């Protein structure tokens, strides 16, 4: 078995004295793990930093084997974020969430493209927190738990959307909420791409997406808690806002 693809490195674990087991989110093969021989060497270890874009070739005798990767760096993203506390938190949160959510060896081409775009923005533009929030929405969508924020679930109106239903993930307007308002989640305007897109607004949006990641997605994945890296990003945004 052999294939070649490009992907973003999600995680690295030491394996024995000289090898490493890496997880890469590839375009055509999804989240895929494999051994990198000599992965802890002085030559290769600096390349194997989370977020790095790699050209990988995977080989194994049988498809179900872990297999080995040979890796070639395409683009290092570590240098762009290392000195930026917030961007580093964003990189950690994105990689940790992908490692947490994605099923192995299942292609998610749309999410892959959005992930690469997000990683390219980290530390490069000030708009990346909004891109991160939109990326979490697309992550939920790709995992089958997409939010429907286009129109009110009750009245069908597209204006005045202020709540989101914790049960259906659909937006609800103030008029449509009625006496159920206190049972609904607030819909931060940042999730609609409106209002203040400052760190505070992004943080509110992440708290809402976090609700659905925790209540909807995590139970399908063994009910594990969300990665701490995501909470550290929210904390970092709170300090900025």
């Amino acid at each position, binding site marked *: 078995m052999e294939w070649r693809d490009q992907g973003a490195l999600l*995680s690295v*674990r030491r394996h024995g*004295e000289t090898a490493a087991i890496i997880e890469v989110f590839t375009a055509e093969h999804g989240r895929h793990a494999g051994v990198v021989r000599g992965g802890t060497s002085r030559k290769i270890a*600096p*390349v194997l*930093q*989370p*977020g790095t874009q790699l050209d990988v070739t995977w080989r194994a005798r049988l498809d179900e084997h872990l297999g080995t990767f040979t890796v070639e*760096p395409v683009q*290092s993203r*570590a*240098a*762009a*974020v*290392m*000195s930026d*506390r917030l961007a*580093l*938190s964003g*990189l*950690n949160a994105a*990689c*940790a969430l992908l*490692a947490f959510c994605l099923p192995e060896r299942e292609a998610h081409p749309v999410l892959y493209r959005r992930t690469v775009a997000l990683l390219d923005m980290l530390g490069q533009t000030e708009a990346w927190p909004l891109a991160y929030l939109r990326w979490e929405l697309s992550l939920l969508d790709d995992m089958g738990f997409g939010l429907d924020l286009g129109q009110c679930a009750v009245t069908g109106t597209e204006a005045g959307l202020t709540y989101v239903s914790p049960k259906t993930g659909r937006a609800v307007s103030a008029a449509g909420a009625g006496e159920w308002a206190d049972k609904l989640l607030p819909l931060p305007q940042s999730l609609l791409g409106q209002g203040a897109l400052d760190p505070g607004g992004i943080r509110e949006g992440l708290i809402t997406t976090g609700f659905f990641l925790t209540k909807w997605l995590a139970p399908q994945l063994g009910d594990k808690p969300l*990665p*701490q*890296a995501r909470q*550290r990003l929210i904390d970092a945004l709170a*300090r900025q806002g």
Partner: protein
Amino acid sequence: MSDATRDIETLIEMMAKLPGLGPRSARRAVLHLIKKRAPLMTPLADAMHRVSASARECLNCGNIGTTDICDICAAEKRATGELCIVEDVADLWAMERGQAFKGRYHVLGGTLSALDAIGPEELRIPKLRDRIEAEGITEVILALNATIDGQTTAHYIAEQLEGRVAVTSLAQGVPIGGELDYLDDGTISAALKARKSF
């Protein structure tokens, strides 16, 4: 197999578990030790026995020594008010080899890692806060690896110490003897960002 042969095999098996050694190299090492029994094997066995009995982690900084408080922490002249934070004892020893730093150290015992679920509680960060108060630290130098995990930890510590003490970090850039042609893009970019007047 006689008892003596079994003991040698056991020794080879134990040696093969050491970093950098496999069964073949362990066999060669043991054969060499047996041939140099008086000048090498006996003193090595004695030294290993002594270190096995006395080696311990410094209660203050996490360095490995033979007393509860290591020589660095015990030395009055190293109370300069500077505290160098390193990830591992191996990093501390590397810094000491350079003999450039005259202050004291603090070994974290790892870095924050989302994948391995290592949070601040698993590192020696609470002890670090205590030391800053107790030892009158004026500057904390973050000497952590230039990796994503290392720098995530560095930022976390800097946040925790914000406003309490000056926090600095090691520079990143071209190594001594390094040729630009062989450097990766990230290092060149970091070096350029940290350029200084010449």
